């Protein structure tokens, strides 16, 4: 169901110290999420990374669908013993998520990449995430 008018990019995975970093640039769709889950989980295993930072500073919109996708990725990463931290959430997005009633349970957040790295270093273990 690719739309020729909309550029389709794969999401790049970068290595930062002992962590992996991905930057979400645009709307996530099912196909992109599945591809990302796949390659990210592979990379966690092959690199032995202890943490994953998901940078969402480019996102003006996080709706329930995107929120659910991000929480799912965080849950998968934690099964592979990698802490996942959502970094760079815009204030308007935080306000909107609360009004939506979207909880992002079990997902850690940090203001920026540096703070996210710090959080992972301190190696706080995530609380187990419930399905949903």
């Amino acid at each position, binding site marked *: 169901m690719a739309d020729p008018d909309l550029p389709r990019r794969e999401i790049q995975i970068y290595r930062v110290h002992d962590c992996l970093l991905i930057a979400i640039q645009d709307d996530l769709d099912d196909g992109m999420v599945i591809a990302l889950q796949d390659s990210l989980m592979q990379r966690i295993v092959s690199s032995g990374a202890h943490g994953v930072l998901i940078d969402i500073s480019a996102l003006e919109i996080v709706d*329930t669908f995107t929120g*659910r996708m991000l929480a799912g990725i965080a849950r998968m990463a934690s099964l592979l013993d990698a802490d996942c931290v959502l970094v760079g959430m815009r204030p308007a997005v935080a306000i909107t998520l609360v009004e939506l*009633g979207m909880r992002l349970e079990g997902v850690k957040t940090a203001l920026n990449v540096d703070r996210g790295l710090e959080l992972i270093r301190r190696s706080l273990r995530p609380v187990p995430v419930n399905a949903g």
Partner: protein
Amino acid sequence: MQDDASETIVLRAQHDITRVRRALTLLLTRASAKPTEMTKFVTAASELARNTVLHGGGGTATIELTRERKGFRISTIFEDAGPGIADVEAALRSGFTTGSGLGLGLGGAKRLCEVFELVSSAEAGTRVRISSRVGLR
């Protein structure tokens, strides 16, 4: 810029939801909407567009920007000829879903906009209109 603008987008698949978001973002930027106004409205629209595609079997989104005495008014009407919502009150409640979602979209969209009107029946399908004032100085 022209003061008023309107556009209808056909909603059939996931990428059409993206189109609605982009069209709204463009208009709201032109209307000098504040970041929070923009994110709230576009998020509400994104939820309703997804409902139109997933639950309504597809439909249309009609976007309208009109100038008001101060600032602008952004409105979007979502229409489908799908099965309708049997119990609207229940559907608006957090956590109510007949699908695999979280059941947050409809009630959340209502909270995110100033105006939320929903008309739904098994015969005529579902029509939701949302609207907010933006870019007030």
